[in-house]
């Protein structure tokens, strides 16, 4: 300790301290000055810590593929384990000849209808409206032409065609095969059939009442 405060050394120590102090203050000022300044670069990351690994996680981008997607579509026609779908009609809505099934392969029970109503209100109602009139919020706010299930053309659709439209989409509508399992799609078809029927009954009752 005495060496530190010995003659001659004290002044040098003070100068050194002062220098550090000035430097330190300048550093604090510079760093503080950076606060709130936006940077186009991501934050400095000194320790990589295996945050970025040469492997592809789900939904990660990959520059290897032309479209930048790391996820790839399965090759058409392949069958994964546990995904054997021998009942072609149930999963496509088409019969062996490639025609739409006239009738749903799923029996319409109260449970199926309840399930269909629930799924319909989640996935379909935002555009097609709870009544299926095609006047959901999308039509309302964005003037997107949305089909009604009650016009003459769509009343004539066979069940299989409804299933096909839900599965693969139609016009602006995306396919919903991924979020809605096949049995739920048939349940939605059953629910839509009931909506149509109820509306026809209401109409009949109204016109009948008028007569």
């Amino acid at each position, binding site marked *: 300790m005495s060496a530190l405060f010995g003659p001659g050394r004290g002044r040098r120590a003070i100068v050194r301290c002062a220098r550090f102090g000035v430097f330190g203050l300048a550093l604090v000022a510079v760093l503080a000055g950076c606060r709130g300044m936006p940077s186009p*670069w*991501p*934050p*400095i*990351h*000194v320790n*990589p*810590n*295996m*945050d*970025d*690994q*040469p*492997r*592809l*996680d*789900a*939904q*990660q*981008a*990959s*520059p*290897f593929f032309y479209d*930048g*997607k*790391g*996820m*790839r*579509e*399965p*090759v058409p*026609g*392949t*069958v*994964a*384990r*546990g*995904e*054997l*779908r*021998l009942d*072609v009609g149930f999963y496509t809505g088409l019969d*062996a000849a490639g025609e739409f099934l006239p009738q749903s392969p799923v029996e319409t029970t109260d449970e199926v209808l309840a399930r269909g109503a629930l799924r319909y209100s989640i996935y379909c109602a935002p555009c097609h409206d709870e009544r299926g009139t095609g006047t959901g919020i999308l039509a309302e706010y964005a003037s997107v032409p949305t089909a009604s299930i009650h016009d003459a053309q769509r009343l004539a659709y066979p069940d299989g065609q409804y299933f096909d439209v839900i599965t693969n*989409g139609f016009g602006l509508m*995306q*396919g919903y*095969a*991924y*979020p809605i399992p096949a049995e739920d799609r048939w349940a939605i078809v059953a629910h839509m059939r009931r909506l149509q029927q109820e509306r026809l009954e209401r109409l009949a009752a109204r016109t009948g009442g008028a007569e």
Partner: protein
Amino acid sequence: MARSTAAPGAWEAPAYWRSLEQRADDPRVRDHYEREFLEGASEAPEGLSRREVLQLTAASVSLASLAACRRPVEHIVPFVQAPELMVPGIPRHYATTLPFRHEALGLLVESHEGRPTKVEGNELHPSTLGSSSLWMQASILDLYDPDRSRALLAAGEPSTWEAFTAAWGDIAAGLVQSGGQGLAILAESFSSPTLARLQRDAQERFPQARWATWEPISEANAEAGASRAAGVALVPDPHYERARVILAVDSDFLGTEAGVVLATRRYAASRAVDDASPSSSGMSRLYVAEGIHSLTGANADHRIRVRSSRIGAFVAALAAELARQGLGVSAPASASPVEGVSAEQLRVLAADLLAHRGESLIVAGRRQPPVVHAAVLELNAALGNVGRTIEYRIPRHRQESGETLAELVEAMGAGRVETLVILGANPVYSAPGDLAFAEALSGVANVLHLGGHVDETAAASKWHVPRAHPLETWADASAADGTLSIVQPLIAPLWDGKSEIELLNLVAGGEDRSGYDLVRQTWSGLLGSEPGSESFESRWLQTLHDGVAEGTAEPAAEAPVSSGALQELASSPAPGGGEGLEIVFAASPALFDGRFANNAWLQELPHPITKMTWDNAALLSPATARTLGVENEEIVTVSVEGREIELPVWIVPGQADETVVVELGYGRTGAGRVGDGVGANASVIRTSRSLDYAQGATVRSTGRRHLVAQTQDHHGMEGRPLVRAAALDHFRDHPHFAAEMVHTLPPSTLWSEWTYEEGSHPPPGVRERVAVDVPVYQWGMAIDLNACTGCNACVIACQSENNIPAVGRDQVRRGREMHWIRLDRYFSGSEDEPETVFQPVPCMHCENAPCEQVCPVAATVHDAEGINAMVYNRCIGTRYCSNNCPYKVRRFNYYHFTKHTPEVVALANNPDVTVRSRGVMEKCTYCTQRINAAKIAAKREDRPVADGEVRTACQQACPAQAISFGNILDEGSVVATHKRSPRNYGMLDEVVYTRPRTTYLAKLRNPSAELAPPAAPGADPAHGATGGDESDAAAGGAEGHG
């Protein structure tokens, strides 16, 4: 070798040694055993030669350097239109088939978001039964090989498929007029119904065309032999599991012959003992007569060294001995003696075979000429084995018999070939040197080459079409028993490759059709219904789903035997020995015939016998090396008929004398950045007359040396009985011999004992939060050394599952190889006639783990389920843990081995496993990602994890089913049953009391009582004396210092 003398009467374990240097107590090697890290392992290499391994593509380099100090920006890239059944993060599995020569290997491939990442065997497919070989495992890295051919080439310039089809249309128009005059097609062997159909189409369209077949390593001899004896084309189907006595003559049926997965499964079944009643246990006995030291020879109970050229004489002598002992074969009464085979050996072998009529089995190897195979068939028939232990089947869907490569080259040389279509083969590299194929090829006007790489042949071809990998294509195949299966693609071709059926269809039919349509067209004929019909579609979908077409297996064919081969064999003169050595060309147990040369996993896989990596060598027996005055790593010139190659010498204990063995598959020049320039091409000194072995080879020293990267002394553990083995008779009398090999005081430990209760050592306060009805698992593993054949499939499976990098030759030389599971190979006995034991060594997951006590940052800790876990992000790389590990199973990332992984290679990595960085210690995790996946699945269904639901990668791959894994608290689980076996022992447990969770079941041998085996382990029944210094009466060899 320095071995202390044990107390008189004490159990004396056989002296095991890993290398000849260790056996001689060479000080250079002693150093390997005394140090954890090899000399220089901690120092930087001169130059950055590690980059030779995956020499880096530039794309990721710039990215890495620029973004190095900034947090990486990641984008989520979802599907716009998501496929119906693909949930991101949940892998799916596809059954498909890997055509491998004429074999069909059933696969079940794991796919993460539409990208295949891991290959397993398909449990429904008869060729694999759920297990896999190292080549199946490594095929995933081949798919993502960055050096694969990326574009169609016309005279070396990038072109398009459309331009090619147009050009071919012009050529074909001329060919159709001439009936195919001047056209030749060179194919690999196959067993595909579609290819067979297209071959017939091609021959119909071009009746004058030539069709030749070339496989550098072919099974043609076995098939020719069977058809010679029986008059029809037949393929043998040996049932090792039904045999009690097996004789393999020059046959490596556990290593490189066709059908190794099934053969290993069946052989291991024949070796199973009943641990519950040791006294009544029986197992098969394996005799092997061979010249090279193969994996099968290493597993033999009795190994007889006979040069490959003398195998025929050996079979004749055996037949004579069998006839003398009363077997009705038309063999000459006496046969000339065979050097190296004693009359006593022949007598005992013949008596053993005769005592097990109908339960014995003789198999001959691929290298032997047809007459030997025919003779073996005669013997099997006389012994009553045909139809019992060996069946024959009529091969279906193979190529129609064609010309040999030699005949094709002759036609090419005579100018009779103007257009040559090469379907996948690489003859410029693999053709025997005497054919001068490349010269002949230069005289052919139009050469079309289909190949996975721009390889040696592609460079010499006018057109090169990139070949799609089997995981990218539609195709089909038939297994050895006739079962048909479809090859379905896991991913669209990465580089617009075409399959051989698509190219052959263009050649044969002139149309450009998709493989999908072509396969469906074939199958409509096979199934007898039109595509689109309901019966076809349901059968097709079922076949795709299962990976096999049910009910298509063929019944065994009658094998009428005509005699004559034995007589011919006995009367054929001994090969003109004359000057020089015998040279044997063997398939590489890693690279096979060179088709896997650009696969870094396989290049770095230690050879099962020599433990060499990244090289082939001139393999010599110790005596022959002494005679020639050469030693290990000395470069010699091996010359045959004036053609020569240079190779380093490697001395192999147990190889036949006067023989030099050279493995094929090395010395590629057009393989890619990994395979080029590794080793020397042995095809150069092959001759088309004698492809598999030849006389008159000379070996001259060049005086130079080549440093070989071999691992046989790496990670050595010394001084204690690490691997334990005994004879079956000894086991019957002393079931607990493995435990009795070591006597110690009751162990005690400084640390608290593992309690096996839920959350054994929870931090304070945690116990209260743990729900009591959570199922309790304590994971453990048992490895049955008696089943393990040393095939290395587990090593590659682990590497694939756990993203383990290959590090390159230079790093292997420094002892930095990263394999989490290694196969220790121990010899015992003399250097000429050693016995071999294999021991797979992963992390032992010790309950009293020494590594955990010394980690200063708690980067390696125990979890509540008994797993010794690594927390990579905590690790600061002190390597104390590795120093303190008695099993040497920890691996340290000396470099950022994965830093420059090309984008396409990154696709092969398992997304469920961390890719480790520099400075991090790593080791076996018991495949903790698989354990967690099973626990999550079980929890979703509100049930405990069932036994067998969690399978580690090594366990799932193992064709011998040597590895069991599961919850050791579940009394009924397979692993708990194994751990109750009297053969169960924990390696080093008695000495250091680590309580390893991975235990071993001791190996048994079944030598004949009449043939005293050379220093067979456990031949001496004396044991049981207490005291003594067991760590001295020890395996592992070098002087104990513990």
